């Protein structure tokens, strides 16, 4: 059973890879100019997708079909665009900025997975990110070091999540209402404190930023060294921390007893309670974890990237992270893949607007449309944890 499952998945994954290849071969550095190439490779990817579909692996098959379709069409589109434009749009820099766009989303998405896997809906991710963004700046200015900034972000993000926890776990308020209020509270509070503490705006150069790791040694790798350096050579420490968090989230949730508890509380709290798991305890821990992680995502925006804070600077990223959680079916790996996909979309938006005249606003709708398609069940249904959104009453 498991063997068969794995092989089906491999077929689907190969389909995804071929779909990417269909596009990749037509752009620099390869720039193959033949309509047949994206068509043939794309069709092969489609074939693999259908093969996987036939064996019942709907999600991977769906991804393979989507990639085959988009990759093939993208490849055909690239045939009609001159090489210089392609070079300007698709640079190694785009991949690096994909990672930068994906990092805050991935932090928040991992947080969202913890909370929602334990059965607490968290639409307050946005507010928790915003809180993290503000207190990271505040801590970093106050102490002069970004380490304290990160700690403050985590502390206050966790506190805000604790409020969400108290209201949705103990007080049994509607979790969506509570999450909504968390967002408003964070918006008001950070805006208020920002205006009260920094009436003249954040002073230039006062913020201690998270260092970037200059990985110069990548250059010495033969062949692809230059490319690797361009992508990975100048990333913030937080990006690397994000990779770690994604791996940890997967390991904790699916390979440890703690993860089993979190998931059991989210699927069947009564059963978990009967075997002696503290439902409230696990849920509080999961919700606070989500706040801490989301706040790290916010901190990346402020002290990891731009080095300042502005009112409502998260501007909906928490909701994109939420979309990634759902799109990724409440699984860390898939959710991370979704944040990369969304991040790639954002990274492409600016060069596409500049070079090809495609509206950045239009490209920005892409994560939301994809998620809508995903929940509609077209790429394999996204089925949430069973007990999500339901307060648990002890007996």
């Amino acid at each position, binding site marked *: 059973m498991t063997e068969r499952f794995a092989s089906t998945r491999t077929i689907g994954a190969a389909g995804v890879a071929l779909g990417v290849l269909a596009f990749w071969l037509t752009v620099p550095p390869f720039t193959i100019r033949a309509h047949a190439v994206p068509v043939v490779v794309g069709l092969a990817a489609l074939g693999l997708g259908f093969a996987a579909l036939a064996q019942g692996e709907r999600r991977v098959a769906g991804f393979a079909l989507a990639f085959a379709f988009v990759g093939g069409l993208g490849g055909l589109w690239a045939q009609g665009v001159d090489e210089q434009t392609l070079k300007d749009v698709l640079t190694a820099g785009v991949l690096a900025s994909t990672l930068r766009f994906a990092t805050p989303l991935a932090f928040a998405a991992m947080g969202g997975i913890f909370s929602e896997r334990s059965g607490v809906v968290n639409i307050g991710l946005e507010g928790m990110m915003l809180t993290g963004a503000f207190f990271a700046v505040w801590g970093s200015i106050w102490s002069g070091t970004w380490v304290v900034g990160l700690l403050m972000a985590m502390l206050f993000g966790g506190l805000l999540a604790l409020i969400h926890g108290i209201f949705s776990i103990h007080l049994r308020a509607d979790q969506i209402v509570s999450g*909504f209020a968390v967002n408003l509270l964070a918006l008001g509070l950070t805006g208020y404190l920002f205006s009260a503490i920094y009436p003249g705006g954040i002073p230039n150069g006062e913020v201690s930023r998270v260092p970037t790791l200059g990985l110069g040694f990548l250059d010495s790798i033969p062949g692809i060294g230059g490319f690797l350096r361009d992508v990975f050579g100048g990333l913030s420490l937080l990006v690397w921390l994000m990779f770690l968090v994604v791996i940890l989230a997967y390991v904790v949730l699916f390979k440890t007893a703690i993860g089993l508890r979190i998931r059991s509380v989210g699927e069947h709290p009564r059963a978990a309670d009967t075997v002696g798991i503290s439902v409230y305890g696990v849920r509080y821990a999961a919700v606070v974890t989500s706040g801490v992680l989301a706040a790290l995502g916010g901190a990346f925006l402020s002290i990891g990237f731009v080095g300042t804070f502005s009112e409502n600077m998260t501007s909906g990223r928490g909701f994109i992270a939420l979309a990634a959680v759902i799109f990724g079916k409440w699984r860390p790996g898939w959710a991370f893949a979704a944040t990369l996909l969304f991040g790639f979309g954002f990274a492409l938006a600016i060069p596409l607007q500049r070079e090809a005249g495609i509206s950045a606003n239009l490209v920005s709708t892409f994560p939301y449309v994809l998620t809508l398609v995903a*929940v509609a069940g077209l790429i394999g249904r996204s089925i949430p944890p069973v007990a999500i959104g339901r307060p648990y009453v002890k007996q």
Partner: protein
Amino acid sequence: MSEGPEPEAPKTGFPRLSVLLSDRAGGALVPLAATVLAFLIGGLVVLITGHNPLTAYRAIFNGTGFNWVFPWVTGEDRRRAASDLQETLRIATPLMLTAIAVAFAFRSGLFNIGGQGQYWIGFIGALFVGTHLHGAPRPLHILLGIAAGIVGGMLWGGIAGILRATVGAHEVITTIMLNWIAIFGGQYLFELGGPLQGSNASLPRSDVIDGSSKLWVFWGTQFSGLHVGIFLAIVALVAYFLILNRTTLGFTIRAVGFNPEAARYSGMPVRRSYFLALAIAGAFAGLAGAIDVLGYKYSVDTSDFGSGVAFTGIAVALLGRNKPVGIFFAALLFAGLQVGTSSRHLDPDIFEPALASDLSTMIQALVIFFVGADLLILYIWRLRRYLRLNPPKAEEPVPL
């Protein structure tokens, strides 16, 4: 009130919270207590940051125009108050409608966070009619604009409704996604080079709607006065009440909201009612957008799409407990807060408007928290001893 045992407390089991609360002050207790509590905590924040909360609140109140009702406000003050009140009522209008959009769906057990998207689609629909249909007589032009808004909102709500009814996609998720699609899509339509951009090619904004599609202004001047949209909102509140309480559709929707399984077993079309609830909810939000554009905004700029009028609508519905009268007063409260804290109305020497508008956001959040958690209010009212969530066994004496 909070001291001493309640004489008429039931002896066995526990009265449902809602019963207990609606017995007191017609269900207004929790919203009122929540509001007072929120203002108290907000005042605390003001105090901590070194301002006097009383003078701040007083200044905010004077900016709302509500002091117009006091007979002792005369002369220049009265004129000012009238103009402030016009603005407050103008802001309250879409809040009432977007609140109905939340409340209506809520009664069928659905949480419609999509008022924002439905509002903007309605707004764009009415704007399109206002700018592209020339030469129609005024009542017809206005009617068509409003119809376009309603249809637009209905469409946007209906997408979420169809997804809920057919594949069971959770409406919170779909409406959030639809919000952002509407916001970015709207920005795309009116951006530089966008398909609906106005005749000035250097500005990312639409044309101004024709004069024949503008709503009548009945109090104050053409540009800052109060238009007839407020009456439409009140009519909508009445319609909301009538649809829910006097029609078969409303009965079905309430039954489904109360217990979908029971409704299904008694043969009610649960799925269809989910779809209709969200579509009709969308229609109300779309109407809000149409009234805003035909009433006083007249055009749109891409930067406008950030405003969160429908998010405030959610707060209004929650505070108003989904009741028409509650929504009316909650909308006035939040509209007043918004107007009273705007930089145009608040003297920066008394209290920074930048702080005040964030303060009002915070107060909104706190109100929602407290309204959403009856339990908390009850703890505060020292009613905890009556809170036995599991009815004790009949033989056991109930400690009072």
